[in-house]
């Protein structure tokens, strides 16, 4: 569904991604792991066009999208839950959800369904986005992306700031979304969540893909785990 081929991305002079290649199969979840500052967000940003890659190809449904601008990429069916939430602080909760909403054949998310999912948001419907708590903002961020009814969803640390009970809730949704055929690329620090959901795992280190395999393979590879994820057990 989504494929990155040999992506090189720069911030000004500094070379951040060194030939990243990865794939997301239709209806599957690929997870991107790695320590802080290794280039995970940069990868996501390369896909959505915030920091376009200098060389390499990005294919969505076999169509090249790397030279398009962000709004075109998003419109061609990619949804984004960014790192740090980035809710529109001067819009109400409801406006945050509705403003960029789009309908499409691939999804059927509506305001009611989002409210059902996050009852907290309904309670805060008229509050300004900027006044919400961290976790509430994360819910908006997820809801907002779903409301664009994408075919591919990019999730950059969706569990950040969510309480354990909400994390579990979000996991359930993601599972359901997969079943409905949505393809996803997720960056996640919460390992148990990541591994429970992933169909495929990539590990980034300093802009290089250093592991490419299934969660099971990763569980067995203790060297990779300790070296790149600082997991001892």
């Amino acid at each position, binding site marked *: 569904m989504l494929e990155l081929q040999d992506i090189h991305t720069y911030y000004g002079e500094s070379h951040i991604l060194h030939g990243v290649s990865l794939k997301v199969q239709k209806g599957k979840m690929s997870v991107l792991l790695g320590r802080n500052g290794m280039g995970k967000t940069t990868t996501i940003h390369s896909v*959505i*066009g*915030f920091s376009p890659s200098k060389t390499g190809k990005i294919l969505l449904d076999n169509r090249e999208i790397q030279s398009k*601008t*962000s*709004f075109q990429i*998003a*419109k061609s069916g990619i*949804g*984004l839950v*960014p790192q740090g939430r*980035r809710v*529109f*602080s*001067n*819009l109400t909760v409801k*406006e*945050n959800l*509705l*403003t*960029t909403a*789009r309908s499409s054949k691939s999804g059927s998310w509506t305001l009611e369904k989002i409210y059902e999912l996050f009852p907290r948001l309904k309670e805060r419907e008229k509050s300004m*986005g900027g006044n919400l708590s961290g976790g509430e903002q994360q819910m908006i961020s997820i809801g*907002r*992306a779903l409301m*664009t009814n994408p075919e591919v969803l990019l999730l950059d640390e969706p569990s950040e700031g969510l309480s354990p009970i909400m994390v579990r809730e979000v996991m359930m949704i993601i599972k359901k979304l997969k079943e409905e055929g949505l393809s996803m690329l997720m960056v996640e620090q919460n390992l148990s969540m990541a591994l429970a959901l992933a169909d495929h795992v990539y590990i980034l280190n300093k802009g290089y893909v250093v592991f490419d395999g299934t969660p099971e393979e990763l569980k067995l590879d203790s060297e990779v785990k300790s070296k790149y994820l600082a997991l001892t057990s």
Partner: protein
Amino acid sequence: MDILGVQLVNGLSYGLLLFVITSGLALVFGVMGVLNLAHGSLYMLGAYIAFTITNSAFSNFWLALIAAPILVAVISLIVEVGLLRTTYHLGHLSQVLLTFGLAYVFHDLAHWIWGTNVLSLAVPASLSGSVSVFNQTFPVYRLAVIAIGLIIAVILWVIQEKTRWGAIIRAGLSDKEMISGLGVNIKLVFTSVFIFGGVLAGFGGVVAAPILGIFPGMEFQTLILALVVLVIGGLGSIAGTFIASILIGLLETFSRFLLPELSLFLPFAVMALILVVKPKGLLGKVA
């Protein structure tokens, strides 16, 4: 008693004239975060173009009222796409400086094209008469201005509060990158808003010209007043701009009537007072 009544109508008419002039500035600022110091210049161009049209073969005020704003919109389009767009990533101060430079450029262009004489725009016969208000002669045109101001206020309020457009635009103000990442062509939206701001400025120029006149430097005079109105109302609030326009209109009218020596001082004093008491203006959103 009668004289107070007439002054009240004077104040309303002047206030709504201010609103017509300021609305475009308020819209562009509220929506794009661009403090368009060339707004006064677009206003001036509207007036001068209207003058040229009414003094051409067509010689028709109503044609000028439609054509001048359209021409100003074209100029706005060129400004936004050709210049402003290249500076959005540099922060808002850059746009202030850029539009300030533009104001200079437009000033001399007008000087060059239309010369330095004082010009005036004749009102069509249907609006040029006078009627009696509170037993005093009152120009019909000023009553028409009240109506025009109210219509524009309603249109803007609907656009900003009742359509998704308004929300998209405000979202763009909060995080431009993110809104495009969600599939909105924010550049196009910004261009349209700027053009619409230009239309309002040009329209304001035509409507104001019969009252305020057309002369070199008119744009700076208007700009300062418009900025005062904008700030008193609270940045980004159309309703606030509306209230502030009427407030300043009444204030100026009555201060000229009662305390003429202070009329230069008062608008600024009121602005300072309001900012000290309500740091975000009358209806500005509180942080």
